[in-house]
């Protein structure tokens, strides 16, 4: 009986190990909603929604405007190559042609960090996946 239980545990451990290895080897997919913090004079929380198909990444960033409490959707396109993310988009309806450029890397813990270049300069950012919660 003891031998049977030991074998069962060994199989479970092997399966868990294989699963972890598989996850490590699997290509990362950024699809989902990210809670991004723009590190300006203070941290501004910004929603970043991404959709990844292969290397190609598309998405939307809800950029805060000059008016408190208002955001503007900016559509982004780009790619993820070897955990390095590049995205760019144009702010529609802006008085002058305005682009947003994002570069970043995917960290081992699943978070991301990088830099965002916009009309008011360049700021560092970090991002975590939005935690799923029951309403």
């Amino acid at each position, binding site marked *: 009986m003891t031998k049977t239980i030991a074998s069962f545990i060994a199989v479970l451990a092997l399966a868990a190990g294989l699963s972890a290895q598989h996850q490590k080897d699997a290509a990362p997919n950024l699809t989902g*909603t990210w*809670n*991004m*913090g723009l590190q300006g*004079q*203070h*941290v*501004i*929380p*910004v*929603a970043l*929604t991404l959709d990844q198909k292969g290397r190609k990444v598309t998405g939307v960033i*809800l950029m*805060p405007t000059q008016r*408190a*409490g*208002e*955001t503007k959707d900016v559509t982004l396109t780009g790619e993820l190559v070897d955990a390095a993310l590049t995205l760019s988009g144009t702010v529609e309806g802006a008085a002058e042609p305005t682009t947003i450029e994002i570069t970043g890397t995917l960290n081992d813990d699943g978070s991301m960090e990088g830099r965002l270049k916009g009309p008011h300069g360049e700021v560092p950012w970090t991002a975590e996946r*939005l*935690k799923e*919660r029951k*309403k």
Partner: protein
Amino acid sequence: MTPPLSRRAVLKGLGVTVALPWLDAMMPAGRALAAAVPRQKLRLVCVEMVHGAAGSSSIGIRKHLWAPADTGCDYDLGPTSLKSLEPFRDHLTIVSNTDVDPAEPFTASEIGGDHWRSSAVFLTQAHPKQTQAGDVEAGISLDQLYAQRFGRDTPIPSMQLCIENVDQAGGCGYGYSCVYTDSISWASPTRPLPMIRNPRVVFDELFGVFGTGASPAERRERREEDRSILDRLRESVSRLQKTLGAADRARLGDYLDNVREIERRIQIVEAFNLGGEQRELPDAPAGVPDSFSAHVRLMFDLQVLAFASDITRVFALKLGRDNSNRTYPESGFGGGFHNASHHGGQEDRIADFATINTYHVAMLPYFLEKLRQIPDGDGTLLDHTVVLYGSPMGDSNLHNHKRVPFFIAGRAGGRLGGGQHLKAPNGTPLANVMLSVLHALGLEDLERFGDSTAPFNL
């Protein structure tokens, strides 16, 4: 034998009704105090300090700017923003390291909306529905759960007060209705209660001045005819005093002096504000002092009077607005509140924000001391009061809702231990603590509150 005076007895004059403080004459003759006094109903005050604390930032935690370094009874308040509460240490329960998860964003569109969502979460511990229309929804707030259970036998079940403007209409930001930032009290998940900023309105409501039917203009006109509402009570006071012993006469005299003193302070503020001088708060009603501390103290004094006369047992008080950039020169730091709260993680700026936090907390001892000075049944008002003080925001620089500042002052008639600092395990909802507070207040049958997972051992 003379029957005891009813606890509900009042002094009445033309258009004025003033409830009485606790008097010996209310005790049945020949009975010991402990036996004669029914178990005192507890008073509840919930104070929201908006937008977190310096002590919730990484540096602030390390430097113990909010929670003391040690847990248990032997803690040092010296480095913390709570140092002014040292004289009330025995009545103090600090609970640190709790989170307010319902204030976090649940969807992409909610990310960034923390300022416009948080206040609605403080006392409900429920996630507000993102809407700018009339279909607002959060949860029943803690103060209202208590008021709905125990507030029915007082003339006013509960009152909601605030220090900054709350008259914004429609949408405030990130798709949230302004009611989420305007109120911390919710009578039901869909009914936020309006908050009163003007001490004059609070005073008139507490003392039934001129009746409920009078228009503001009529009230103003009648007010100008008298120096004091007490002028209308002379006969009633005189009649009652003839039936009272010396101690009760002195107690009644002190109480009416307090009523008059508060009324006089409101009149002085109104006279100044209507006198044509330039105001710091030009849009505020005439009864609102420009000074933050003067305003808060007036509001606290009104609460003490209301408790002393048992007009109501429940108050909610909102000290500010997340987005306010009000300055507090009396704190020793002259910068604006919102700018200070966004300290960028810099140590010197965190210290500035801590100075404001310390100043805000330092409003409490004035209130607690007043409560301690007033007899109430077999103890004092402080013995029978619970004050909750905290914020639904943690690190305001990050706009997170983790490790939020929170403490309880008062021992709920002995149901709370007091004199301790309790550090919760990581990830503990503040709602757990609030659930236990509700149990201590007498709602023992309540199984859940907000996102609580279990009661917290207070």
